[in-house]
């Protein structure tokens, strides 16, 4: 056990911190889940890429720095500490790229990774359908064999930032005869292909960040099948682990929230209930626990271990902690909690209420927490399925 950082790691941290201090926009960007904000975020992503900070852990040939997992976590800690913008490229970088590295062809890697890292091409996830949410095996969108490739038809829904992205990765039913989890294939699809229609859908937090995507006889060449025909389920489960696991929710995010909550408490504590101090400390400790748990996981991965269903433990913890932290903040705000404007009365432009609403999506997306608890009980504790 050694919880200190090497001189190289500390130097990397200093370098990242200095660059962020010099480059992070002074004023927060508009939400990346709106059309205008998305474009503004892409400018920032480009800046990150040019400084080789957009994908630090990737190989240099795709725009990365070959950074270690430890350096990656350090980068993320600094990124959130600096209150740098949300990554609108995250679904590509964190969900698709790990699979491309694992099962993608050389053609696919060369074609897609660098453009993803630079933000030139942006990816959304096409998994959920109107009748396939928690039960992904209920997917009915079809892939029909045609000359030189496949023809896709059907509908995807709740596609985050789907209205602004250039590409979609998703599952389609390629063998209608096969069982629920079999006969699915994973495709890479440009959203400007003929037959694709994208409709933006508003979210409860006021952003237009969802989309419905319709496929009407959309041609996809064979080279854009990822991980083999009819093999989509096992490929998708790889993604699920990384979506649920540490990659999408780096501890820096919650440490930054906890620090803001401590500041808020210091501003508001004379007006607020004395019991809230206990909740603020609990939130702060929760972020610390999450940080340590992550270091444990990172060490395990470096030592060759696998995250596996532990990712579900992780996901339930951070998603419910995130909700709780924001609830504590709203309690500190009391009657001001509802204000979401930029007046002097509203605290932090109503960002806590906005953040609360965003946090509420945590226990739902990437597999609801009900599904995660089933996974923990069945795959980790070994309780019997029904």
């Amino acid at each position, binding site marked *: 056990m050694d919880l200190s950082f090497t001189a190289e790691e500390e130097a990397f941290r200093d370098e990242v911190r200095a660059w962020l201090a010099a480059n992070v926009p002074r004023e927060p960007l508009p939400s990346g889940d709106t059309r205008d904000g998305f474009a503004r975020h892409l400018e920032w992503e480009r800046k990150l890429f040019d400084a080789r900070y957009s994908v630090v852990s990737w190989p240099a040939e795709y725009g990365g720095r070959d950074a270690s997992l430890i350096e990656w976590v350090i980068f993320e800690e600094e990124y959130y500490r600096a209150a740098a913008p949300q990554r609108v490229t995250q679904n590509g970088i964190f969900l698709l790229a790990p699979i491309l590295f694992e099962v993608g062809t050389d053609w696919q890697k060369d074609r897609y990774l660098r453009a993803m890292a630079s933000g030139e091409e942006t990816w959304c996830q096409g998994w*959920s359908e109107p*009748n*396939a*949410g*928690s*039960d992904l095996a*209920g997917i009915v969108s079809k892939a029909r064999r045609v000359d030189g490739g496949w023809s896709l038809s059907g509908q995807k*829904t*709740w596609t985050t930032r789907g209205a602004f992205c250039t590409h979609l990765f998703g599952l389609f039913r390629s063998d209608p005869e096969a069982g629920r989890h079999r006969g699915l294939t994973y495709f890479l699809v440009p959203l400007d292909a003929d037959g694709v229609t994208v409709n933006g*859908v*508003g*979210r*409860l937090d*006021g952003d237009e960040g*969802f989309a419905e995507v319709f496929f009407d006889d959309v041609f996809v060449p064979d080279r854009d099948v990822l991980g083999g025909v009819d093999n989509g389920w096992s490929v998708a489960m790889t993604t699920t682990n990384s979506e649920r696991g540490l990659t999408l929710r780096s501890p820096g995010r919650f440490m930054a929230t906890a620090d803001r909550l401590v500041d808020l408490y210091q501003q508001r504590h004379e007006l607020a*209930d*004395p*019991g*809230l101090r206990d909740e603020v400390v609990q939130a702060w400790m929760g972020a610390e626990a999450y940080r340590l748990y992550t270091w444990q996981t990172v060490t395990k991965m470096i030592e060759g271990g696998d995250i596996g269903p532990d990712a579900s433990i992780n996901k339930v913890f951070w998603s419910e902690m995130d*909700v709780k932290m924001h609830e504590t903040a*709203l*309690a500190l*705000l*009391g*009657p001001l*909690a*509802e*204000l*979401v*404007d930029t*007046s002097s*009365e*509203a605290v932090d432009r*109503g960002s806590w*209420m906005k953040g609360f*609403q965003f946090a*509420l*999506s945590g*226990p*739902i*997306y990437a597999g*609801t*927490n*009900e599904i995660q*608890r089933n996974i923990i009980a069945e795959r980790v504790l070994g309780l019997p399925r029904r």
Partner: protein
Amino acid sequence: MQFSFTEDQVLFQRTVRDLLAKECPPEVVRAAWEGEPAHAGRAWGRLAEVGVTGMLVPEEHGGMGLDETDLVLALEESGRVALPDPIVSTALVAAPLLRDRAPQAIASKWLPRIATGDALVVVGLDESPNVPSADVADLLIMQLGSEFHLVDPTKVTLNRHSSVDGSRHLFTVDWRATDESMLVGGEQGWQSVNEAFDRLLLGVSAQLVGLAAHMLDTTVTYVKDRHQFGVPIGSFQAIKHQLADCLIKLEFARPLVYRAAYSIATTNPDASSHVSMAKAFASDAATFVAGRALQCHGAIGYTDEYDLHMWMKRAWALASRYGDSRFHRRRVGRAIFGPDPQTQ
């Protein structure tokens, strides 16, 4: 001891429910979100017709001359449909304030108009400087310390604020007190301010219960209908238990709200404690149900096309305003323990 509503009261609740289902469907709430001022729909007129706005207005002024136990179920119904109109302010706060404190000439001017639905009266308390629906008020009654003043809405400047609930149109009111504008002051004034606050709490608590009931009903319907893994998701124990918990919270908040109505109606000396208990339990029930409703809906609940979010946001706004549940536990604590020992 008889803790139930009369057959007539229950029948009246049903009338109001049917009326509001027709006149205040989700599209009306959505219109308020789009900027349509509160009171734009036909609900207000119909509520006045059946007697809701004038429930506490004496019969000689054209009202029903009834009490808060007659009104509380109607207000619960106004919560169930997330009515954007200032019904609590007009019917439950302003009407008895004018009834009890206004000189005859003023009472005769405003009370009949409240009863007929021709006047919306909005009460602004120091406690909550963001006044909802001030833009549609025919009369503003503004608190200034121990005083209430009658303020002409055409002579004030309104500044719009944004609530997470887009159908709540909030304003700060820039107004000037004059000797003529004072309705009540001094010792009586403080008493009026406290009564007004307690009434506001009662009304908001009843609405929170109605909001919670609607969110629970909607979710029960959804989980019976929505299938995953080949079965309705409502057949999963994890869903069942969340919704059972919602019902428990709701069922134990209700009697506190009804008792608060009774205590105000009978001028019980503990009425302030009773409304605080109601507000605390109703706030917690509504925010709890909102959270479980969203979770049981999943992604569809997270869209703004689906109506649920409008109810959730109303619940968040009303639960945190006018004292959240911690605030009201502190208020009840002062009744149990004596003055706040903030030093402990």
